[in-house]
């Protein structure tokens, strides 16, 4: 008998929160990306939990797709990071602030 879904969901929520704090606080672009990955993982975890509890394979399918899209996103995102920050001294997100009002 497994433990109830509440624990998994709570864990996912905390993981999501940690990822959120990381995105907002860290300045290194790559670390911000990693924190976004944390948030995605939290979502995946909760999807799988729901899939188990409701007996629905759709949850797992969604995790599958999230995984794929996350991969694609990382690829493109890192490509952009590389393109911007090639040969720069620092790679903080704060360096791109020209578009201000």
């Amino acid at each position, binding site marked *: *008998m497994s*433990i*109830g*879904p*509440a*624990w*998994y*969901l709570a*864990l996912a*929520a905390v*993981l*999501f*929160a940690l990822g*959120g*704090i*990381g995105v*907002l*606080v*860290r*300045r290194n672009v*790559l*670390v911000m990306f*990693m*924190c976004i*990955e*944390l948030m995605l*993982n939290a979502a*995946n*975890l909760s999807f*799988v*939990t*729901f*899939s188990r509890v*409701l*007996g*629905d*394979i*759709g949850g*797992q*399918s969604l995790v*599958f*797709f999230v*995984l794929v899209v*996350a*991969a*694609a996103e990382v*690829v*493109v995102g*890192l*490509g952009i990071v*590389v*393109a*911007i*920050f*090639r*040969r*720069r*001294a620092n*790679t903080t997100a704060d*360096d791109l602030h020209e578009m201000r009002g």
Partner: protein
Amino acid sequence: MSLTGPAATLLAATVPDVITFVLCAIVVLSGAVGVITSRHAVHAALSLVGTLFGVAVLFIEQHAYFLAAVQVIVYAGAIVVLFLFVIMFLGVDRRENIATEPLKGQRPLALLFVAFSLAGVLALAAAANWVTGAHKVAGSTGAGHHTDTFLLGKSIFTTYLWAFEITAGLLVIAVVGAVVLARRPSRAHDAPEPLVASSAGRDVGGPGAPAASDAPKVTAGTGAGPGAGAATTGRGSPTPTGKVHEPSGVGP
């Protein structure tokens, strides 16, 4: 109010399950904390790997074996590796100064909003008895002794076929896009990177201006020569890769 519910299930569960869960939770959370507090990017990546493994184990715990495997292979095996590649590429020994926060009010507000959101989510979920929803909408798990892989495959290739094909296309686009984006400018009179054209061309002065970057843009070489070259040398960017096709007049 419904904490008795979760507490009851915890007490009613078997011991291995509980131990597994607790250990994995520790691993996941410490990995997350590691990601957000590491000063070194590589440390952060490694912490991320820990988290991913923990999540994979939790997947196994929830009978999603295929996904656990895919999680390890794709996430930990490909994405994190990609991260590490880029970290190496851009400078592995950079340390970020986490102590200071240049933007005013960012940290307190971030903590506030995220904490509030967490509390809100937990409260809402608790009020809704954690899981509500229709059962077996897209096909049940473990029905008729099929493995989850079988069911997952069937679901993807029949119910969600359209989405599958689109994501395949997405992957192709992403690869092509990444190749184009990350391409190094080849010759002197090629079109410069569009993203930095405006900012770099202008601030050739002041060494103190943080945004004035020595652009990889190389215009009709000699024309921008002295000015751009001065900035370039001034910066002295320690890029390990920028040796080929430097603007003329710049030392190695």
